[in-house]
């Protein structure tokens, strides 16, 4: 379960291929203006962050401040599965309604505020997945199912990325992250294609994940 959710480093949103629709342009303009004036950030970030958490009834815990995460980190280190510091510093994990993050929320010295929101949208997608009684069984028993659950979360991250930054990251790099989840090469190929399918909708201004929809509504309000 410790490898349930991972985001290994900040997401880089690079050049989109199509012009977004007017509504998205409006959102992008709003946020680039805010960024340029350097007035966006903390206040607007807080509003979006809290709005997302409230909607999903989730809470965020800093990994390094949590005893359970410390114990998991030590356990993985002893088994030589993952270095203790790497686990605590690079991986985000969601257990039911608790989201364990490796960074200080609102501190943009290492990861930008937009990237923090993207990570949050990814993790929030896992919150309702936990409500499915077969979720854990499906997740651990099949790499194909694990890839499916993670694809939904990756799509939420892509939607957030497009809403906040106006572009998408290289999809093959997003898909290959699932190697760290124990997914096979065949799963990763499927995920890359699935993300490409979703990107068609995203670049035309569509959102389908719950986190993407909530973020969009918050940005428009």
């Amino acid at each position, binding site marked *: 379960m410790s490898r349930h959710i991972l985001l290994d480093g900040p997401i880089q949103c690079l050049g989109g291929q199509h012009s977004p629709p007017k509504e998205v342009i409006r959102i992008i303009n709003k946020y680039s203006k805010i960024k340029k004036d350097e007035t966006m950030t903390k206040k607007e970030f807080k509003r979006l962050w809290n709005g997302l958490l409230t909607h999903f009834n989730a809470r965020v815990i800093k990994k390094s401040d949590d005893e359970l995460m410390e114990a998991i980190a030590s356990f993985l280190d002893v088994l030589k599965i993952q270095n203790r510091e790497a686990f605590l510093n690079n991986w985000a994990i969601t257990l039911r309604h608790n989201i364990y993050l490796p960074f200080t929320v609102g501190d943009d010295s290492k990861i930008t505020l937009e990237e923090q929101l993207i990570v949050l949208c990814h993790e929030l997608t896992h919150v309702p997945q936990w409500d499915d009684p077969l979720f854990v069984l499906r997740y651990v028993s*099949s790499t*194909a199912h694990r890839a*499916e659950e993670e694809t939904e979360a990756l799509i939420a991250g892509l939607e957030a990325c497009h809403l906040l930054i106006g572009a998408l990251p290289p999809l093959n790099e997003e898909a290959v992250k699932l190697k760290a989840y124990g997914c096979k090469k*065949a799963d990763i190929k*499927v995920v890359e294609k699935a993300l490409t399918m979703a990107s068609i909708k995203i670049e*035309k201004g569509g*959102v*389908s994940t719950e986190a993407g*929809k909530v973020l969009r509504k918050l940005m428009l309000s």
Partner: protein
Amino acid sequence: MKYLILALLVWSLVSCHDDCDPEDTRCSGNMAQICASDGDWQTVDNCSLVEPGEWECCEWAFIYEDAETAACIPLGECE
């Protein structure tokens, strides 16, 4: 014995699928689906739930590795 039956029941729930070729895509109803590595169809997007506006699943929305591929696109754009 009852645990064996339970295990078989759970296994059948987890493993049942209607064979397809991995990476194939299709529209099922208004859902864009992809065939997973285990030969089971998985939904990528339910086009009826896409916002804003109305969206439809299109089986030839774009070309991916020389093959027509399904995706959600705005209603009326699937030609």
